[in-house]
C-alpha cells in the first residue's frame, strides 16, 4: 500500500552515508513495510544500492547478506557435505506468503520482523546462524539468531543498527536435520515449526522450537535424547505460560503440537 507519510527515499551507496534519525526505516524487500501503514516513518533508507553479494559460501559457512532475497536462498545449491541445505526450501515453503513474495522479500527482513512464525528465523536459528550487526556508532557485533529475536516483533537491534548478514556455520550446515510444521490451515501461518539437527554419531542434537513460542528456543543435547528426556526438557524450559497465543493457534494447542512434532522429529533422527 502507499506509505503516505514517507517524504523521502534515501538510496545510499555505502553504510557510512547513512545519518540515522527517528523516522528512518531500512528498506529491504519492502514486503512488510508496504503491507501496513507506517505512520511513524517519514524516510526510507534503501539498502539495494549497497551492493552486497547475496550469498557467500566459504569453508566457514554461508554468509547471507542483509539484501539476499528469499528466491536467491531458494536457488542456492551448496556443496554435498552441507546436508542441511534442503532445509532452506522446507522453511521457505513454510512461509504463509507465496512464491511471488520470494522475489522481493529478504531473509534478513524476515528475521528483523521478529515474528514468532518467521520461517527464516526458524531456519537460521536451527542452523545456528550468527548475525553481524552494524550499529550506527561503534564496532560491528555478533549475536546468535536465537538471541537476536527477543519477543513478538522485538529484537536486539538498536536505533539505526543494521542486520548486515547472517553466517550459517559450516558445522551446522553439515548436520542431518528433520523438520515439521503445523498450521491451522493448509500452507497457512505456522502454529509450530520445529526443527532438529544432529551431527554424526548422534552427537550434538539441537532442537529448535519456533512459531509456538514468542521467540525461538534451542534445546541442546549431547546425544539424541530419549523421548521422555526430550519431553521433560521441553517442559522444564517452557512452562505453560511460555507459549505464544494468537489467532494462528491457542497457546495450549501450540504446546501440544510442539511436543507431538518434536517427538516425530526425534524418532526420525534416531
Amino acid at each position, binding site marked *: 500500500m502507499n506509505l503516505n507519510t514517507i517524504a523521502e527515499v534515501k538510496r545510499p551507496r555505502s553504510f557510512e552515508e547513512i545519518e540515522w534519525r527517528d523516522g528512518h526505516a531500512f528498506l529491504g524487500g519492502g514486503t512488510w513495510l508496504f503491507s501496513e501503514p507506517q*505512520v511513524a516513518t517519514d524516510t526510507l533508507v534503501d539498502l539495494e544500492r549497497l551492493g552486497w553479494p547475496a550469498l557467500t559460501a566459504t569453508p566457514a559457512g554461508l554468509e547471507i547478506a542483509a539484501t539476499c532475497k528469499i528466491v536467491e536462498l531458494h536457488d542456492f545449491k551448496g556443496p554435498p557435505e552441507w546436508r542441511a541445505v534442503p532445509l532452506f526450501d522446507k522453511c521457505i515453503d513454510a512461509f504463509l506468503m*507465496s*512464491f511471488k513474495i520470494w522475489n522481493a522479500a529478504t531473509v534478513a527482513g524476515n528475521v528483523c520482523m521478529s515474528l514468532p512464525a518467521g520461517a527464516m528465523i526458524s531456519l537460521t536459528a536451527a542452523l545456528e546462524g550468527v548475525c553481524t550487526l552494524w550499529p550506527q556508532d561503534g564496532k560491528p557485533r555478533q549475536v546468535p539468531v536465537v538471541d537476536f529475536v527477543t519477543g513478538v516483533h522485538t529484537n536486539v537491534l538498536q536505533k539505526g543498527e543494521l542486520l548486515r548478514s547472517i553466517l550459517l556455520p559450516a558445522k551446522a550446515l553439515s548436520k542431518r536435520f528433520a523438520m515439521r510444521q503445523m498450521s491451522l490451515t493448509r*500452507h497457512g501461518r505456522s502454529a509450530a515449526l520445529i526443527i532438529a539437527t544432529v551431527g554424526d554419531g548422534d552427537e550434538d542434537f539441537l532442537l529448535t522450537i519456533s512459531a509456538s513460542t514468542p521467540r525461538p528456543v534451542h534445546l541442546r543435547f549431547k546425544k539424541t535424547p530419549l523421548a521422555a528426556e526430550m519431553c521433560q526438557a521441553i517442559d522444564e524450559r517452557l512452562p505453560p505460560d511460555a507459549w505464544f497465543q494468537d489467532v494462528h493457534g491457542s497457546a495450549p*494447542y501450540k504446546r501440544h503440537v510442539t511436543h507431538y512434532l518434536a517427538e516425530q522429529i526425534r524418532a526420525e533422527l534416531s
Partner: protein
Amino acid sequence: MSNYEVNGCLYSAEPRPGQCLRTFLRDLDVFGVKKGCDAGDCGACTVWLDGKPFHSCLVPAFRGEGRKITTIEGLAKDGEMHPIQKAFHDAQAFQCGYCAAGMIMTTASAAFDEAHKADLPHALKGNLCRCTGYRSIVDALHGKINIEEDVAGKACGASLPNPFTDAILTGKARYTMDIAIEGLLHLKVLRSPHAHARLTRIDRTKASVVPGVIAIYTWEDVPRRLYSTALHEDHLVDPDDTYMLDNVARFVGQRIAMVIGETEAAAEAGVRALHVEYEILPTVFDPVAAMEPGAPRLHDKGEVATQNGNIFCTLQGEIGDVAKGFKEADAVHEKTYSTSRVQHVHLETHGSIAWKGEDGRWHVRTSSQGPFPVRAKLAYLMGVPAREIHVFTERVGGGFGGKQEMVSEDLPLFATMKLDGRPVKWEWTREDEFIGATTRHQMTTKVRVGAKKDGTLTALDVQVVSNTGAYGNHASETLAAAMASPFAAYRCENKKGVGHVVYTNMIPGGGFRGYGASQTTFAMECAIDELARLLGIDPFEIRRKNVVRPGDNVESIWKEPSDASFGSHGIDQCLDIVESELKKGNGVAKPAGEEWAEGTGVALAMLECGPPTEHRSGAEMQLLPDGTYHLACGSSEMGNGITTAHKQIAASIVGVRARDVGIINADTDRTPYDTGTFASTGTVVAGKAVHITAEAMRDDILAFAARHTDVEPGKCRLDNDAVVCGNKRILLTELHAAGAKVNHRFTVSRRAYLSPRTIAFNVQGVRLAVHRITGEIRVLHSVHAADIGRPINPMQCRGQLDGAVAMGYGWALIENVVHDEGHMVNPQLRNCRIPTFADTPHTDIFFADTIDTIGPLGAKSQGECGINPVAPAVSNALAAATGVRFAHLPFTPDRLYSKLAAKP
C-alpha cells in the same frame, strides 16, 4: 522525471516517495492492476517486473524504474490473447472477475513452472478468489473447456460464457474505482477507537490546516436523520437507528468524522490530526448479558424504539402443542449450537464516487447490490428528490450480501453537495471492511427435538439469540429467516420457537449469503443427526422420512398462511444422489495410520426462493435497427452471472443467440426499477421480469409483423433474425425499418413481483478424516446436490454452488474473526483467513432433475443456499468419525484437539 516502461509504452513520471507500484500504475490509467487487500495477501495486483511476478502493492514504485513492467493489459500480443487468458476464457475461470488479472499474471508467468503446476495448492497461496471455490481455475490450468456454443433459440440451458469475459480477462473491464476523474477529491474517515463513547469535543484546528485538507465534517454538519444502512424494498422492515455521523460511537470502527483532501495522503493526515475527546460509556458484548436488567443500553436516545432494553426484536410462535409432542417422543435431543461471525471479503472493497454532472444532477458510481434502494435512502438523507440522484454500478467485484448495505455512498455524496459538486471518492481499505462494514450475525441456537422410534418427529422447540452488534440493519429479517426455512424443512405437527435479536457493542451484523438461515440450519441439521443416532436410524433415512413435501403445510412456528409453494420438489433426488455418491466413493483413501479417524456426514437445507417481504423488478426490451435486441434490467451483476442468465432468458424467448441481446443493468437512469440483487431473487424476480418482457417483445414484433404482412397472427413466428409470416420471411432489420416509418418503436416493458415463492433444496455430503492428535481435518470427498429447477446456465449454476460450498467450508473450518472487547484482533487477510486454493476441497456437484412450475423457464434460485448445509455436514462427519459433537463454529484444529481421543 524517471522513465518507466509499462506494457511496452514509455512513461516519464515520478512516483511519490512512499508510493507503491500498484497505485503508481493506476495513476497511469493502468486499471487492470486491482486492489483486494493492498497488503500482499490476495494477489489481485500481481504484475511482472522483467518477467517475474510481484505483488505490486508491496513493491516501492521507484523500483520499477528502468524495468519492463507488464500488467494484464500487456499480456495479449497483437490482439491475440495469451494462452492462459484463453484458458481462463474457455473454462470461465472467474465469476466477479476481480481476482482474474492477478490469477492470470501469476499463472502465466515463466516462474510458474512445471513444479508449480504440479503443486497448485502451494503455488496459488498468494492468490485469493472468493467466488469460484477455485474449481474453474483448476479447470483453466488443466485446459478444460466449460463453455458451449451460443446457438440461436437454444440459449436457455446452455453453458454460455459471461458476456464481459474478454474485457475482464484483458484488464479492460472497469470496476468501481477503475476510472480517472479530473479534480477528484478523496474522502477518509476517522473511525471510533472505542466500543462505546460519547463525543464530548471535536477540535478541527490542527486537521484543518493540514496541507491539502479541503473540508472536515462531523455529526454537527450532516443531516440528523435516522435511517438503516440495510437495503430492502420496504425500508420499514429495518430499524431506523443509525445516523450518517453520530455523537455516540457504539462499536469500534464506527465512522466518526470525514476528512476531504486533495489527495488520499492529505485526507489521511487530516484524520490523524483531528482531535476528538470522548466520554467512555459502559460496554456489553455478549447478547445474553445485554438482555439482563441493568446492562448498558445501546440506544437510549429516545428516538430509536427499543421497548425492551437491548432486545431489538423478538419473534415467537407455536403450532400444535409442543408439550404434548415431547410426551409422545421416544427420544429427545437437546443441545445448544453456536455459529461464528465472519466477513464477506468480496475482493473488491466498498467504494463510491459522487459528483455533480453537467445535467445538474448528482451521480454516484458505486459498488452495490441495490442501486435503487440506495438512491431512495440517499434522497431521504440529503433531502433532495430521488430523480435528482443517479446511482449506478459498472463492474462489481463480489457482494455476498455485504453490498446489500448503504455504507459507502452517503458520505461522498454529502461532501460533493457541500463542495460545489466536485467529485469525491471514498475507496475502502481491507481494514475498513473488517472493522467498518458488517459481518454475518453471530447466533446461538438451542434446539430440542423429539421423535418416535420410527424416526417421526413429534416436537421441535428452538431458542435463538442473535447478536446484531451496535445497529439493527438486517437483524429482524435475518432472525425471521433463521426462524423459518430450517425448521419449515421438516414435517412436524408441534413446533415452537422464540428468537431475540440483541444490540451489543460489537460490529453490526448484516446480510450474508444464507441470511440467518445458515446459522440455524447448522443447529437443526446437527440436531437431526443426533436424533438419528439416538434412534439408531440412518441420517439419510430420518431426513427422507421427515422432510417436507407437496401436500404438507410449509410452515415453521407460525400458522399464518405462507406464499411459499412447491413449484417442484427434488429433495428426494438430492438425498439419493449424495447417498449413492458417498457410497460409491471417489477413491481418495483416509491417510494411513490409526491417528486418523474417518467419518461421513450429511445435511440438507431448504430455501424459499425469495424473501417473504416485498421485492420487485422491471425490465425493458427493444428491437434495434440492426435486428438485435437491447435489454435493460436493474439487477446488479457482482459475479453471480445474472446478466448472462438474463440475456439467455430473453434470447431463448425471442429465438436468437444470447449475444444478440445487449444488456445494461443496475443503473437508476438507464434501467427500470429493481429492488436489488439479494435474497435469491436474481433469477426468480428479475429473471421473471426479463422473461415476461421478452414475451411481450416477441408478441409486439409478431403483432406488428402480422399487421404489416396482413397474415393472421397465429401464422407468424420469430425465426432468429427474421419473422416468418405465412410463406414470407422478413428480416428483423426490414421489419424495424417498416416500423420506423409508422412510428412503431418495438419497445416493451414489464414488471415482476415475487409471489408465490417456490422452494429449493440443497444437500451436502462430506467424508473427512480428522487427526486425533493435531486436530487437522482433511476433506476426502465432498458431494453436493442441488434442487434448483432447470439451470438457465448449468456452468454458472455449478460455479455458484462451487463458490457457496467453498464459503461454507471456510465458515466451518477456517474463518475466524477474533474480537477482544469489541476490537478486531486480526483485521488483515493474512490473519483472518478466507479459504485459499489449498483449503478448498473439490466438490462433486449434481443437479436434481426438476423443472419448476413457478420460476421463470423452470428455474429456481441457486446462488445462496448452497452454503447452508456445509457446516452441519462437516460437524456430522466429525461426530461420525470421533463420537464427539462439535457444536460451535469454527472447527479449527486448536478448538478440536483437546476433545479428541488419542486412540480409536
